[in-house]
């Protein structure tokens, strides 16, 4: 006899854990399976964990702002559970969105107003007062250092910034995921590590369970794909599911650099998370007085979509494998060097490389599937860490409603946010949607 659960969640990352937590709270007997050895060791381990509210759609802003409220209220969210490793901490640095041609910040401002996000409109002088090492010359369009025009002197200036005082980042994303695992276990949820799902079993288009590499089987009427960059592989294991998605996902390689703060400047203590589309980068403080520099994947940069298994095995060579590449190290650090001219750039690259589970329009798929009982929370496109607790509650309610007979495709589930006074059409995240042309088609969502 196979062991039976009410719901099996494939993946114990920052998205899989809160889904299990909320289902367990509702009384579901849950099992998370993960091929890593602990919670949060997939792509979550490399996340920048930036918590910001600026998105290009109103729903995107609402969800992120709601997420921010959870992170600020972390202990409560976990229901007072103890984690022997301690609790993750929200670092409230404040969040600067530089106004530039690279970011449709007017749309963001409109969305901020509609959702009621607290923000301030900052002049160039105000930005420099807050962050004295910034030089706000304009550099648009984004270029690579290999392009001789990258080195041209800038003549124009940026317009200023939108400043969101509630933004920041979470200091330890793996720990935050571990915290949610402990909270799930406190409600009876189980976790199985070092196991790989190789098949999703079904009968007459109803999901039956999963099969692991060692042949063992587990059964449940609900199976949720939260496999991060492997999401397309899991969808392909479930008969007809991948084919039934109008929006697809694939793994996109992303490098994050750690570059020391200029001498005499305490970026770790005094700095802000900053989105800088003028240079195609974002940055936030990191332990060791470092700038952590991510890329907004500007058009001029190569996009690499490796096979996730090859990638994690270190195959492919520079620019394709799981090590930083010299070219991208220079691109991201030199771009920041434009904004922070006193930044010192070491010769040896330091940082992390991981994969985004990228959807066609950079908006996630939080949905049921064409197979009964099979659900997915995928396509997180490099920007859903901040939303994880919201996604957990929303997915659990969606699953519960569908299991009780809701036809979510015909009659989309409306999710009532817990902190903000608004509801949310979950159909926004449908696998059947047409590509959302309002999206920024970047990590900005």
């Amino acid at each position, binding site marked *: 006899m196979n062991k039976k659960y009410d719901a099996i969640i494939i993946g114990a990352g920052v998205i899989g854990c809160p889904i299990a937590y909320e289902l367990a709270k509702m009384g579901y007997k849950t099992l998370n399976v993960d091929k890593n050895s602990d919670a949060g060791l997939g792509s979550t381990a490399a996340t920048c964990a930036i918590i910001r509210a600026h998105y290009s759609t109103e729903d995107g802003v609402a969800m992120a702002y709601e997420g921010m409220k959870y992170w600020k209220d972390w202990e409560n969210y976990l229901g007072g559970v103890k984690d022997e490793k301690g609790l993750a901490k929200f670092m409230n640095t404040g969040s600067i969105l530089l106004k530039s041609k690279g970011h449709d910040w007017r749309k963001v401002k409109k969305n901020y107003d509609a959702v009621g996000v607290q923000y301030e409109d900052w002049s160039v002088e105000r930005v420099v007062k807050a962050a004295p090492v910034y030089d706000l010359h304009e550099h648009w369009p984004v270029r690579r250092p290999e392009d001789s025009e990258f080195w041209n002197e800038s003549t124009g200036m940026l317009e200023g910034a939108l400043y969101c005082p509630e933004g920041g980042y979470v200091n330890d994303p793996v720990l935050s995921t571990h915290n949610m695992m402990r909270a799930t276990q406190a409600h009876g949820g189980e976790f199985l590590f070092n196991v790989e799902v190789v098949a999703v079993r079904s009968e007459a288009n109803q999901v039956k369970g999963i099969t692991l590499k060692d042949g063992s089987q587990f059964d449940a009427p609900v199976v949720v794909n939260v496999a991060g960059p492997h999401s397309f592989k899991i969808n392909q294991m479930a008969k007809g599911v991948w084919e039934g998605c109008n929006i697809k996902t694939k793994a996109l390689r992303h490098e994050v650099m750690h570059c020391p703060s200029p001498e005499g400047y305490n970026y770790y203590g005094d700095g802000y998370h900053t989105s800088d589309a003028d240079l195609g980068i974002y940055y936030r403080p990191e332990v060791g007085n470092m700038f952590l520099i991510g890329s907004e994947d500007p058009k001029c940069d190569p996009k690499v979509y490796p096979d996730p298994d090859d990638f994690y095995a270190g195959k492919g060579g*520079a620019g394709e494998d799981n*090590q930083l590449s010299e070219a991208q190290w220079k691109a991201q650090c030199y771009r920041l060097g434009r904004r922070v001219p006193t930044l010192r750039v070491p010769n040896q690259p330091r940082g992390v490389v991981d994969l985004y589970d990228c959807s066609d329009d950079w908006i996630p798929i939080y949905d049921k599937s064409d197979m009964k009982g099979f659900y997915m929370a995928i396509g997180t496109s490099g920007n859903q860490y901040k939303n994880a607790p919201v996604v957990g509650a929303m997915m659990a309610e969606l699953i519960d409603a569908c299991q009780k007979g809701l036809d979510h495709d015909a009659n989309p589930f409306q999710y009532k946010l817990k902190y903000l006074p608004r509801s949310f059409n979950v159909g926004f995240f449908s696998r059947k949607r047409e590509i959302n042309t309002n999206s920024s088609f970047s990590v900005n969502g």
Partner: protein
Amino acid sequence: MPFKIYVCVKHVPDSAANITILDKTRIEEKITFIINPFDENAIEEAVQLRSKVGDAEVVAVTIGKPAAVETLRSAMAMGADRGIHVVTGDPPDSIATARALKAAILADGAPDIIFTGKGSIDSEGFQTMFRLGAALGVPAANNVASFRLEGRTATVESELEAGGRAVIRMPLPCVIGAGKALNKPRYPILPDIMKARKKPIRTVPMESLDIGTPPASVQLIELRPFSDRRQAKLIPGPVEKAVEELVRLLREEAKVI
């Protein structure tokens, strides 16, 4: 005549890269290469010395494939005034390298002092700098942790394996192999990197240098991976038992206690 400071730098694979060995003697070079980390200390010391001496020039020299020009640019961003690139195919051994460095330097000028890194992180031969000193007939000290110049006498402290330091006094010209303890290299800011793009590099084909036929040479027979990926081992059970098992493993299997 300006005081001439030469710094020998090498283009090496980043130690963090995934190294793949191709047909026994070569590695897949589609990986990140960097300036040899010890050479950063050499450049830093050279640049500091230039500002003390006043009328001085720092010249970075490299022997390597065309891509090694990137390492010269790094050296110049860190403060070298110009570069010399001796272009080779497959990397020469330390004997040929030392002869080529000597030929390239003497063709350029009369060195007052030469800095190198204490060794390179790829071949780790720790020979080139001594061979260069021998080829030039000048003294050399390696793994240097402190350096002082008075008139034409250099006083260095050289870190020894046993943990001691040897104090060595040498007349100029001499060869100094920089160790990690010598200084803290200052990394360049973007304006330095921009300036470095415009600094001159002279390119010299290796074949054009008269290095003679060395009486001996080193041939690379086979490269092997240094260590396979380490495997974590989980010791299950209650703490007391697990500790006993850990001690047994460390004693009997790892043989470290």
